Structure formats: structure tokens, C-alpha cells
């Protein structure tokens, strides 16, 4: 379960201010996050993962208070409990597909890679349809295949939460549908919680609930984006 209470986050001189009095996401829920550009969708993911620290308030994931963790604790939390899927895949060109999937183990010394993880890799690669392409480089794959690799990387550490920031934003509709199916199937299979930022409202019916970020914006920007809120949220 993710529980956010009295969260306030602002940065710079842009006037951006995010204010979330109360927000709860139950474990294994699949939640869509919508809202206009600049409404704090990605910021919310970063706050939950501990990549950003709120000015005020509390974020609790499971029984851990992310907002009161130290830097290294947040890093370890992110490495072991969170899986990320990005719009532009963010795979490393100089590594093979397999090395990209196993990257979290390579850059986090406290994550141990063993037989269990090897089996998980084989299982994920098989289900994502990239089993035969583990030795290729990302540039040798299609866009859809790259996102499948990114999904495998997000799930290889068996995270409790998967944060997906517009995972189908760079894909054609058909591929987007296939990738979304894979993401939802795998998240369900691993009993993880999914928070997915999307601009594609046609995908929302696949999810359990939707959070509209416009409602959490502070007054300076909030009044401006509230006008577009109905356009963004209504399916």
C-alpha cells in the first residue's frame, strides 16, 4: 500500500507547487495518473520512489516511510522495491539486452544475483518475446522490443511497485497495446502495484483507477490547468 498525507512539494522559481492532502493506493492496484503537462505526474513518481524529497508531509510505502529515509536508504529502497519504465526506454546502447535487463544488479552492490534471478530473467525474457535476442544490442531491436526489454529490467528485481512514465508514449498504437498488455500481465503476475502516467485515455479502462493530478496543483498554476482538467481526464 502507498499512503501519502499532507504532501507539499515545490521547486525553483517556476511557481510549481504540488499539494496532496491525502492519497492512498492499495497494494497490487493498477493506477493511471493523468493530468496536463506540468501537473506533476512524473514528480509524483519521483516522490514515491524517493528520487525527490517532499518539502513537507509523509509518503509511506508498505511499512516504510520514504520521506523520512536517508539518501542511501532511499537509494536502496528504490533499487529493491521500485521498478521503472520510461517513455524512451532509457536502455544503455553499449550493453546487450541481457546486460541491460540485469543492470540493476550491476550498479547496486546490495542486490544479489543468483539462480533465482537467472530463472526470473529467462522467464521474463520468454514472456516478453525477447529470449532469442538477449545478446543483441538495443539498436538492433524495434521500438516495441526495446520497451519490452525495459519492462523486463523493471521487473527483474521483483519490485513491489512499478512506476511507468508514459511507457507507450513512443510507440505506434498496435505496439502500444501489446506493450501495455505485457506490462499489466507481468505486474499482475508479480503481484506488484502499478502507477502509470499516460496521456492516452483509451488505456485507462485497463486500469483499476485513475488519479487526476490537476486537483493537486497549487493555486498559481492550478487555476490555469484546472481549465484543461476536464479535457484531460474525461475518457
Amino acid at each position, binding site marked *: 500500500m502507498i499512503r501519502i498525507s499532507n504532501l507539499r512539494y515545490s521547486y525553483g522559481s517556476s511557481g510549481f507547487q504540488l499539494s496532496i492532502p491525502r492519497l492512498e493506493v492499495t497494494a497490487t492496484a493498477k493506477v493511471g495518473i493523468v493530468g496536463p503537462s506540468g501537473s506533476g505526474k512524473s514528480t509524483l513518481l519521483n516522490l514515491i520512489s524517493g528520487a525527490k524529497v517532499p518539502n513537507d508531509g509523509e509518503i509511506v510505502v508498505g511499512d516504510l516511510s520514504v520521506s523520512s529515509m536517508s539518501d*542511501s536508504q532511499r537509494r536502496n529502497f528504490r533499487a529493491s522495491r521500485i521498478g521503472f519504465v520510461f517513455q524512451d526506454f532509457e536502455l544503455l546502447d553499449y550493453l546487450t539486452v541481457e546486460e541491460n535487463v540485469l543492470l540493476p544488479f550491476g*550498479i547496486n552492490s546490495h542486490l544479489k544475483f543468483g539462480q533465482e534471478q537467472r530463472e526470473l530473467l529467462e522467464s521474463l525474457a520468454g514472456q516478453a518475446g525477447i529470449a532469442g535476442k538477449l545478446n543483441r544490442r538495443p539498436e538492433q531491436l524495434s521500438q516495441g522490443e526495446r520497451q519490452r526489454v525495459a519492462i523486463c529490467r523493471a521487473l527483474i528485481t521483483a519490485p513491489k511497485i512499478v512506476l511507468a512514465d508514459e511507457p507507450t508514449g513512443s510507440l505506434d498504437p498496435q505496439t502500444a497495446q501489446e506493450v501495455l498488455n505485457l506490462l499489466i500481465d507481468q505486474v499482475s503476475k508479480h503481484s506488484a502495484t502499478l502507477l502509470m502516467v499516460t496521456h492516452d485515455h483509451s488505456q485507462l479502462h485497463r486500469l483499476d483507477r485513475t488519479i487526476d493530478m490537476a486537483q493537486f496543483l497549487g493555486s498559481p498554476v492550478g487555476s490555469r490547468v484546472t481549465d484543461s482538467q476536464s479535457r484531460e481526464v474525461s475518457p
Partner: protein
Amino acid sequence: MSAFWLAWRYIRYYRGRTAILIAAISLTIFLPLATRWMIESFRAKAMDRASKTPLVVGTKGSRFAVALHSLYFRGESPTPMKYAEVERLKAFKLAELIPLHSRFRTRDHAIVGTIPAYFANRQLGLSSGDPMSRYGDCVVGASAAIRLSVKHGDSLLSESENLFDLSGAAPLRMRVTGILKESGTADDDVVFCELETAWIMEGIGHGHALKNEDSGEHSHEASRQNLSQHQEVTDENLRSFHFHGSKAEYPITAIIAVPESDRSATLLQGKYLEADQQYQIIRPLDVIDELMEVVGRVRGLFDIGMLGLAIITCLLVALVLLLSLRLRQREMRTMFLLGCNRGRIVQIVGAELTIVVLTSLAVALIAAGLLATTAESLMLRLL
């Protein structure tokens, strides 16, 4: 996945840009290093050779020209001196005298006419074949033999002094009787012959049919009868070779003097103190030392230029690194989100830089080392 492993994968994938970076850094290290090593190596070898050549007598003029000619057989042929000078010095009994004659060349290699004492003094031995036994024979230095593609039993043709001077000395075909062992000195690039063979090339000695073979009576009617002189010494025509004029008048280009003691050396140097002397005596060690001082001063200027270049290269490498980090911000961000700490990211970038710098250093050291080993011949070409 260690930081070095990730760094290696990155470098290997972007090998093109890494190679350019390594080349730039290597060159910056290589140039001053190679220059320094090359000069040091040349200095050591030059001083060694000079120290084994205590005194040299040559015609008055540039001391550097006399030293370089007698040690390395390089540069313009000096004004010839008369063999009489050897006989004059012999009378003093102060030193062993080794006359040199080096005016002719064969395919860009100096032909040096000398006496057997030269080989003993330089400790030159044969790797194959036999020593010279008659006029027209020659022994070839190890490097020259390779470049000229000759072995003992082959022949070498001396070059005419002037292609357009039909009255000048004609080329002489020499018999290669042996190849010298490699000495790592200028002697490796030289073709040695007897002094008399060099005088035959000068046209002072020649061979042609005698008027009366039995009596050995000498006549030059052969030339008037349009009979050509022998261009090669053979067993058959050896007896027909002879010299004209007084030996004292025959040309040589330098005399190496190996004095018996320091006192002998001083006394010998004293023989050249008179102002009207047409010859000079030099201590090659002093001359080469002086030459090296000049080279050292030039190197100092070069080092200043190199320092400027090194600073510019360092700034450019720093710029490349900063731009590279900027381009890789997303990659760094991804690693950070995947739980990688900033220290680890710094380790990866540091490992990349270490690999590039160490590789550049290795390339520069190897290249400079290779160049330094061939320093002597390279420096000689520059002289």
C-alpha cells in the same frame, strides 16, 4: 558489473571517439617524451662513439663538419687533405694514425677507404665472408648490406662523382668479400674498402693493358688506342693496376689519431697550433658535447611549445569530458533512478577516464620507446 567493466563496455562501444581522444592525449605525451628520449639516446651513442675517437685531423673549416664526417661519414665531402700529413704525423710516433677517404657513394651509402687498423679500433668483425684481400674488394656494414641486398660474393658499383662529367672518375665495380657484424653505430651503414681502392675511384690508380706484358713496361698507349680502362679488378687484370704520382699527394678526407697517452695527445694537438696550418686537429668528444648543448637549447624551446600544447590538450579533454557528461545526463539519471549512487557513477566515469589516460600513456610510451631505439639514424638524417 564492476565500474571498470561498465567503463570498458562504454569505451569499446564508442571506440571511434575514444580512439580520437586516445590519439590526442597520446600525441601530447609522445612528442615531448620521444624528443627527450631520442636526444638522450642519440647523445649517449654519439658521446660513446666520440669517446672512442680521441683525435681527428681534417682540413681547416667547420669543426662540426670534420667531426660529423669522420664519425658518421655524413655531410658534404670536406676539402681533401694530402696523404703526406699522415706521413708527417707518423714521424712523431705519438699516435696510431688511421687515414679515411670518404668521397664516393654507392646507392646512398658512403664508401669509406681506410686501413685494417680502423676495424681493430672500432672492434668491427665479420658476420660472413672474408676480409678484403686486394684492390677492388669491399666489406659492407650490416644495415647497408640489408638495404643494398648484397651478400659476400656479390658486387657493388660506386657512383660517378658527376653524371655529366664524362672526364671524371668512372664507376668501379667492387667485389663484396664480407659483411660486418652489426655494431649499432654509423659503421653499419657504410661500405668499406682499402684506401687504394678509393684512390682507384679517384682515378689516381687504374688498370689497363701494358705495352709489354712480359717486361711489365708501363705505357698509356692503351687510352690512345681507344682501349677502355678496367672498371673492375679481377684476378686476371690485378697486375695491370698501378698508381701515378707520389703517394704523399694522394687525397684523404680525415685522419683518426689514437694517441698512446694523454701526453702524446697534448703533444699531437700542439703540432697544429701554428696559424699557417692548413689542417686542424679536433677532439670529437668536445665537438659533439658542444653540438649537444645546442640541441639541448633547441629542445628547451621545443619543451615550452610542448607545455603550451599539453595545456591546450588538457583543456580540450576536459571540455570533451564535460560535453560527454552532458550528453550522458539521461543515462546517469536512469542509473540514479535504478538505485545507483552518485559515487558509483563517478567511479564509472573515473574508470573510463583512467582507461583512456592509461591507454594513451601506454601508446605514447611504446611509440616513444620504439622511436628512441632508432634515434641515432633519425637524428643523423636531421644533421
